[in-house]
C-alpha cells in the first residue's frame, strides 16, 4: 500500500476538522483495530477521548440490554414441554371404552361372584399362614420390624404436625 493510499484510509475515518469520525469512535470503542494513527490520536486528544469513552459506555449498556433481550425472546419462544397438558380427551375416551367393554360381564353378575370368591379364598389362606407362623422366630422378627416401622411413621407424622403448628403460631403472632 502506498503512502497516499494509507493516508486516504486514515482520512476516511476522520471528520473535516481532523478529529475522529463517529464511525471511527464506535469502532475503536468496540475494540476494532483501525489504522495505527487513529488509536494514537485517541490516546492524545482529550476531546476525542471523551467522545470515545461515551461511545464505549453506551455500547456496554446497549449490548447488555440487547443480549438480555435476545435471551428473553429466545426463552419466550422455547417449547414449553413442562407445561404441556396430557391429552384429556384421549384418556376419557379410553376410560369410556374400558367401561363399555366390561359392561356385559358386570351386568351378568358372574364377574362379581368370581371376584368375591377369589377374595375370600385369599383372605382365608393369609389367615391360616399367620396362625401357622404364630409363636415362631419369623413371626417374632416380623412383629418387631412392624412395630419399628409403625414407630417411625408415627414419629414423622408427629414431627410434621408439631412443625406446622409452630409455624401457624408464629404467623399468627406476626399478624
Amino acid at each position, binding site marked *: 500500500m502506498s503512502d497516499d493510499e494509507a493516508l486516504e484510509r486514515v482520512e476516511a475515518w476522520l471528520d473535516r476538522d481532523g478529529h475522529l469520525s463517529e464511525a471511527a469512535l*464506535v469502532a*475503536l470503542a*468496540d*475494540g*476494532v483495530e483501525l489504522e495505527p494513527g487513529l488509536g494514537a490520536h485517541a490516546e492524545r486528544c482529550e476531546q476525542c477521548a471523551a467522545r*470515545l*469513552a461515551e461511545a*464505549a*459506555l453506551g455500547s456496554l449498556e446497549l449490548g447488555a440490554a440487547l443480549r438480555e433481550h*435476545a435471551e428473553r425472546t429466545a426463552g419466550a419462544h422455547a417449547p414449553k414441554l413442562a407445561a404441556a397438558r396430557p391429552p384429556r380427551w384421549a384418556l376419557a375416551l379410553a376410560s369410556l371404552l374400558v367401561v363399555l367393554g366390561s359392561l356385559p360381564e358386570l351386568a351378568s353378575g358372574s364377574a362379581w361372584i368370581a371376584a368375591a370368591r377369589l377374595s375370600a379364598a385369599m383372605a382365608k389362606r393369609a389367615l391360616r399362614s399367620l396362625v401357622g407362623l404364630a409363636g415362631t422366630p419369623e413371626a417374632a422378627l416380623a412383629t418387631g420390624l412392624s412395630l419399628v416401622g409403625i414407630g417411625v411413621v408415627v414419629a414423622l407424622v408427629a414431627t410434621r404436625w408439631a412443625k406446622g403448628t409452630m409455624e401457624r403460631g408464629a404467623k399468627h403472632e406476626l399478624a
Partner: protein
Amino acid sequence: MFDVAMADAPPADLPPRPSAARELPRAYAALRPVLRAVAARTLGCALGHADVDDVVAETLRRVVEGEARLREGEPLGPWAVGIAKHVSLDQLRVRRREARRRQPGDEGSGLVDVVDPRPSPERLAMSAERVRALDLALAKLDEGPRAALVAFHVEGQSYQDISARLGVPMGTVATWIARSRKALGAMLAEQDEARRPS
C-alpha cells in the same frame, strides 16, 4: 504492577478462543485507546495521568487472565470496557480512603460510600415492557443496521466478519452500528418519556 507490554505476548496458560486465537495480542493492543478514554472519564482526570496508566495496565491484566471466561457471543471490546470501568471505580475508592486517612481527627466509620458499579436488580431484570420497547425500536431500524448491531452484540461477531457477511465495507458496518445505537437510544428514551406519569 502489570506491565502493559505483557499485552503483546499471548497468554501461555489460557486456552485460546477458537475464532481469534492468533489475533489476541493485537486485539489487546487495539483496546488500549478505549481503555485509556474510559479510565480518564471515570476517574475524572487527564489522559496522561499516572492513574490512567495504572487502570489500563490492571484492566489488561484482568482481560488476559479472564478472557477464557468471556460468555459465548459476548464481544471482547465492551467486556473489557466494563472491566476498565470497575477498575477505575476501585481506584476512586482507594483514593477516597486515603484522603480520609489523611484528614486529621476524622477517622471515619471505615465504610466507603462509593456507589456499587453493578447494575441494580431492577435494572438487571428487564421488564416485559422494556422487552416490548426494544422489540419495537429494533423493528424500526433498517435491515442492514439491525443485522450489524445484533451480529456484534448478540452473536459476538467481529466488524470484519460482519463486513464479509453483509457484503459492505467495514466503515459502513461502523456507521450502521453507530447510527443504530443512537437511534435505539433515542427511541427508548422517547418511550420511557411517554410512559412516565405526567
